[in-house]
């Protein structure tokens, strides 16, 4: 009888443990801003519907966004961005698949701000490139907010800038992201 109870307890424990392992953090409305201005002209845009998932058990992290989801203040810039630079018709999506390399330092059950390092593959404009970035994960209750600022080079993603606008558009683009994650049921 005792043995049976222990067996049941073990199997229950493993079921719960299995569920705990499968707990993801996610949002579909994360924000990514970019700034490609040089001081000559402001070139900024925001995408408010970034889908992203973190697996706290492994540190795996993923982002996915639609290029047409970027909002500019200027219609002409938005058109050029989609038609000439990103060719959003041909490459509608951009994704990042990577890992938080120091996930063991983040305690998702304890409030606080944790510095994180992320490494992985960014795909946009049909080109995949390994990138690294640092950021922060802020835990407050069930709210988990990740922020990061990093830069990418347009030439790394084969995005061609005509010489005529070369002084207005920076080759090094500043990216900043802010995502409010919630545990997925």
């Amino acid at each position: 009888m005792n043995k049976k109870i222990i067996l049941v307890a073990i199997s229950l424990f493993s079921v719960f443990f299995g569920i705990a392992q499968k707990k993801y953090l996610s949002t579909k409305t994360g924000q990514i801003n970019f700034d490609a201005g040089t001081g000559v002209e402001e070139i900024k845009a925001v995408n408010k519907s970034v889908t992203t998932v973190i697996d706290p058990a492994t540190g795996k992290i993923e982002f996915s966004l639609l290029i047409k989801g970027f909002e500019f203040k200027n219609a002409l810039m938005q058109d050029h961005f989609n038609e000439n630079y990103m060719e959003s018709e041909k490459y509608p999506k951009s994704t990042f698949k990577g890992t938080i390399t120091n996930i063991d330092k983040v305690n998702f059950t304890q409030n606080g701000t944790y510095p994180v390092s992320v490494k992985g593959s960014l795909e946009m404009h049909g080109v995949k490139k390994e990138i690294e970035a640092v950021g922060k994960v802020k835990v407050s209750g069930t709210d988990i907010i990740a922020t990061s600022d990093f830069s990418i080079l347009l030439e790394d993603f084969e995005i061609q800038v005509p010489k005529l606008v070369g002084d207005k558009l920076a080759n090094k683009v500043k990216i900043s992201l802010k995502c409010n994650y919630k545990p997925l049921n």
Partner: protein
Amino acid sequence: MSKKKIIWLSIILTIVVGGGFGYYYAFKRKPATAQDSKPDITVKAEELLKDFENNYKDADKKYLGADKKGENIGVNGKIKELTPENSSLIIDGGNSFEIICTFDENYFKTNSNKFEIGKEISIKGIYTGCEGFEEKKPDEEMSLIEEANPNEKSIKLKTCAINN
């Protein structure tokens, strides 16, 4: 003033004013938002799903519109998720289909009393694309996003507003 002078003056004025408008239209114009335009089409969330399930590539083309900038779509459905911190909400399209709507921060704040989980609502927004409809290749690895949200399909609308 002589007649000639008046004619010349009006020609110059036309050029200056016209040029100003032309310059504004070409270089300073703001992108079209759903918030300050009427929807091109209004559909039920379930009907949208049917459209995309039939042929997502055709549906994508249809809702991007002829200019490829995205049609202003009005969608009727129930609010499934509210995320005020992101000025956004999700409309339930049934069968794991979601319409993800993002708003201007100030607009969302001033209208937040009209948003409630489970409430029927009509939202208009600029269509930006769909996700989750592509067929998987047999050897293709499942992404973390797919693993976390199995079978989930969605379309995304930006610069949304309540569709009156």
